[in-house]
């Protein structure tokens, strides 16, 4: 698959169909990848594609200047692209989405807890096996044991968004709402405490926001000084406010790619805030983000038959 991908990318660049291919290449640490901005056909030879591809590349689309861009697109990137197109943030014809079948991604935090913090010196994938080794240990197991929970029950968007649709994609089975449902079963106090603990850990570094392909505001509320929404005291109520505002701004737009949680340097995962809104949208308004570029926005779209029993 990687060979094919490299060839296709090199050809698109050589023929001038696109001026940039956005993909991944090997990173500098075991089991890490890093975004590749390939502009020369020769650079396409560095492309890789496997379950260690971690970031959501669609986040870079708004930053690059090239006239036409090929985007290596898993369903995560494709769903984000759908939303960006729907919001007129990107011209659909500017992007050639090269769809690749995805069977899920490795969660670095799941891997870290499985290895109980032991440092990985070497890691590689051999078919469906993950081989990891440290100073005086070595382990091998199916990589799906450390599958990113986001990937369970993944959704593929409208094939119309692809330039080359992924063939033979078999999304991992399961329920991406599992953790969300566990939280739902907790008491409001327990949920509040969990949220508060996360907010206390949050450094307000905004890696989550920056890694998010849908966080597109030119100026975030955190940048405002008059009034300053987040005070200098760094109170957890400030980070709570930030995450709640972020979730609300992403209502009906979050494509549940999990990039925010993966980006956080201190392990804050607040995906459930977004899932709560996603579920509201789907149950009440039959809305599903990231699947259809022609759909109406969840917030800001109105139909006479919308349910409105919550309006007093």
């Amino acid at each position, binding site marked *: 698959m990687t060979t094919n991908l490299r060839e296709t990318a090199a050809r698109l660049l050589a023929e001038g169909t696109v001026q940039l291919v956005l993909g991944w290449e090997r990173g500098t640490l075991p089991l890490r990848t890093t975004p590749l901005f390939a502009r020369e056909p020769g650079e396409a030879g560095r492309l890789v594609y496997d379950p260690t591809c971690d970031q959501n590349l669609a986040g870079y689309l708004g930053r690059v200047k090239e006239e036409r861009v090929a985007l290596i697109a898993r369903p995560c990137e494709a769903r984000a692209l759908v939303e960006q197109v729907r919001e007129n943030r990107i011209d659909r014809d500017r992007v050639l989405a090269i769809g690749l079948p995805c069977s899920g991604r490795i969660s670095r935090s799941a891997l870290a807890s499985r290895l109980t913090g032991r440092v990985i010196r070497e890691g590689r994938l051999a078919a469906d096996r993950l081989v990891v080794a440290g100073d005086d240990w070595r382990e091998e197991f199916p990589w799906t044991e450390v599958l990113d929970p986001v990937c369970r029950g993944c959704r593929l968007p409208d094939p119309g968004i692809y330039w080359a649709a992924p063939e033979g994609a078999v999304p991992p089975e399961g329920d991406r709402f599992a953790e969300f449902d566990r939280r739902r079963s907790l008491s409001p106090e327990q949920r509040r405490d969990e949220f508060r603990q996360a907010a206390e850990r949050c450094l307000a570094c905004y890696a989550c926001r920056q890694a998010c392909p849908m966080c597109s505001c030119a100026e975030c509320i955190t940048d405002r*000084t*008059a*009034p*300053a929404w987040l005070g200098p005291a760094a109170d957890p109520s400030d980070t709570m406010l930030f995450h709640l505002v972020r979730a609300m701004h992403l209502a009906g737009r979050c494509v549940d790619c999990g990039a925010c949680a993966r980006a956080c340097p201190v392990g804050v995962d607040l995906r459930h805030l977004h899932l709560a809104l996603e579920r509201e949208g789907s149950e009440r308004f039959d809305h599903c983000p990231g699947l259809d570029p022609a759909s109406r926005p969840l917030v800001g779209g109105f139909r006479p038959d919308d349910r409105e029993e919550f309006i007093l």
Partner: protein
Amino acid sequence: MNPYLPHLAIIEDVIPETASHDVKTFRVAFAEPEVRAGFRYEPGQFAEVSVIGAGEAPISITSSPTQEGYLEFAVKRAGVMTTAMHHARPGDYLGIRGPYGNHFPYREMEGKNVVFIAGGIGLAPLRSLVTFVLAPANRERYGAVSIIYGARSPGDLVFKWELERWGQRDDLDLEVTVDRGDAAWQGRVGFVPQVLRELAPRPDNTVTVTCGPPVMIKFVLQDLEKLGFTPDQVITTLEMRMKCGIGKCGRCNIGARYVCQDGPVFTYEQLQKMPAEY
């Protein structure tokens, strides 16, 4: 030692400067007599001024050390703290810490002619040096003194009361200009660089001191070069976003220079060696 703790000062007078009142001059005196007696500064230095509860901002000390017993700050309403300051009245309290930064090289300038070139509120930092140079004890140490000052419109000129006093002196050549005049305006109309080209000061034994909006500075520098001024004869004072004022918060650097400590006064010669990040 807590270098962030300000001294309290009481506002004695508030003078609205511009027609829209977006610039006001505040005359303040320290609340404690020892601080009042001990606060020494040089023309070109700034202070961190606070409205307690609203924040702090770096403001040039526009008064001169030759004026004893009080300090003056001319403040443009820009954001949170400066807006709060604009609401203050005589008798209200401010916090002041400083003085910070380097100062105009007034000793090295002795014996030379001085040309001041200012635009808008850029006159505020220069005024300290103008007053210093014009003080009876200092005036004879300097050659001819001229001031070219401009603003967008007559209503945007600051320190009009001071300009009137300066205009009456015969040991000073004052040229005031506005980009656009109005019905009542009798003076010059034209941009500062135009006036500079017209007056064409001679570079020999002369220094220029300039401060104003970035576009003005850009053209003034070009024109001074054409008039034969070398970069070391051009002195300016810079603005950068600041917080601590004392080289700790890492905010105000241009290359390896911290504007709060190594500046805000630089010669054009120094600026040319720094990255153009200001």
